[in-house]
C-alpha cells in the first residue's frame, strides 16, 4: 500500500509538490490565525516551515537542494526552481501601475547601486578582519554579501579557491534567509508601505529570493515593485564584482 502511494507521489513530482505546498500554506494559515491571532502573516510562517523542511532535507540527504533532494519531494525542486519562480514573478507585474513604477525610477537606480556597493564593502571588510586579506578572497566574499549568485560568478572570474567560494555562497544564503524572515518583522522600521518604498527595498536588500519572499510575507501588493528592481541586482553585481569592485579592492590592499 505505502509503496504504491510512494511510487505515485514520486512519479508525479510536480503534482505532489502542489499538494505538499498547499498543505504547508493551509497549516501556516491556521497557525497564523489560532496561535498568533493574525499578527504574524501566514506566508511568513509558511516560508519558515519551508526553510525548516529544507534544513531537515539537507541533513537527511546531505545534498544541496534541501527538501528537493528527497526523491519523494523532487517536484518541489521544479515548483520552486528558477523557471516557475521567474514565471510567477513576471506574472505579478500585471498588477503594477506604470505611473507608480516610473515615479520611483531614479531612486530605484540609486538604491540598486548602493545595494551592490555597501554589502560588498561590509563583506570584504569582515573577510579582511578574519584574515582573508588577499584581494581575490576579499572580493569573492564581499560579492557573496551582495547575492549568492554574484559571489561564485565573481569568484570564478577572478580565480578564487573553492573554500572561499563556498564561504561566499554561504554568506549570500544567510543574507537571503535573514531578508526572508526579517522583512515582515522589520517592515515598520523600514517604512515599507508604498510602491516607492518597496522599490527602494528591492534595490538595497538584493537577492530576488529574499526580497520576493520577504515582501510576500509583508504585503503581497508590494511584491511586483520590489521584484522589478531586485531582478537587476544579480546582473549589476556580476557586472561590477569582477571589474570595478575587484580593481578597487586590489588598489586598496595591493
Amino acid at each position, binding site marked *: 500500500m505505502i509503496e504504491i502511494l510512494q511510487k505515485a507521489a514520486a512519479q508525479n513530482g510536480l503534482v505532489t509538490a*502542489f499538494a505538499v*505546498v498547499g498543505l504547508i500554506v493551509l497549516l501556516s494559515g491556521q497557525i497564523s490565525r489560532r496561535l498568533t491571532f493574525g499578527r504574524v502573516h501566514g*506566508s511568513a510562517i509558511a*516560508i519558515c516551515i*519551508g*526553510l525548516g523542511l*529544507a*534544513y531537515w532535507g*539537507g541533513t537527511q540527504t546531505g545534498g544541496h*537542494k*534541501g*527538501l528537493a533532494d528527497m526523491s519523494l519531494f523532487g517536484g518541489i525542486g521544479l515548483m*520552486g526552481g528558477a523557471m516557475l*519562480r521567474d*514565471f*510567477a514573478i*513576471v*506574472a505579478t*507585474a*500585471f*498588477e*503594477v*501601475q*506604470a505611473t507608480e513604477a516610473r515615479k520611483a525610477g531614479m*531612486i530605484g537606480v540609486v538604491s540598486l547601486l548602493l545595494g551592490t556597493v*555597501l*554589502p560588498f564593502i*561590509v*563583506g570584504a571588510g*569582515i*573577510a579582511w578582519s578574519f584574515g582573508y586579506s588577499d584581494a581575490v578572497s576579499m572580493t569573492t*566574499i564581499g560579492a557573496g554579501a551582495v547575492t549568492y549568485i554574484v559571489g561564485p*560568478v565573481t569568484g570564478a572570474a577572478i580565480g578564487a579557491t573553492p573554500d572561499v567560494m*563556498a564561504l561566499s*555562497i*554561504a*554568506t549570500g*544564503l*544567510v*543574507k*537571503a*534567509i*535573514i531578508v526572508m524572515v526579517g522583512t515582515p518583522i522589520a517592515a515598520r522600521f523600514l*517604512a515599507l508601505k*508604498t*510602491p516607492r518604498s518597496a522599490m*527602494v*527595498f528591492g534595490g538595497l536588500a538584493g537577492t530576488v*529570493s529574499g526580497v520576493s*519572499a520577504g515582501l*510576500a510575507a509583508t504585503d503581497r501588493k508590494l511584491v*511586483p515593485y520590489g*521584484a*522589478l528592481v531586485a*531582478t*537587476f541586482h544579480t*546582473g*549589476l553585481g556580476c*557586472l561590477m564584482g*569582477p571589474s570595478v569592485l575587484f580593481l578597487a579592492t586590489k588598489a586598496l590592499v595591493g
Partner: protein
Amino acid sequence: MIIYGTALLAACHLLGIFLGDLLGQLLGVKTNVGGVGIAMLLLIFARLYMAKKELLPKLTELGVEYWGAMYIPVVVAMAAQQDMVAALRGGPVAVLSAFAAVGLCACVIAAINRTERTTVEAAPEPILHDNPLLADAE
C-alpha cells in the same frame, strides 16, 4: 481563451530572458542582466497596449493572474529547497558579513523611505483582479 493570457506571459518571459542574456553578452558578463525585470516591463507595456485596444477580455487576464496568485506557494517551494545546511555551516565569517550587510542596508532603506513625503496619496491601490475567488486566495 485562458491560454492566450498564459501564452502572453510566457512570450514576455522568454523575450525578457533573451534580451537579458543579450545584454549580459554585450556587457561581457557571464550572466543574465535583469532578464526578469525586462520581462516584467514588457508585460506591463503589453497590458497597457492591449487594454487600450480592447484586446484583453477577462478570461485572457485570468491566464496571467493565476500565475501571479501562485506566486506565494512557489516562494514557499523555493524556501524548501534552500541549502540551509551549507548556510548554517558557513561559520562566523558568513553569518557576520551577512548580518552586517543586511543591517547596514536596512538602516539605509529606513533613511531613504523616511524622506518620502507621506502625503495623502495613501498607497495607491494596484489594479487588483475583480475575481472574488482569486482576491480571496490572497
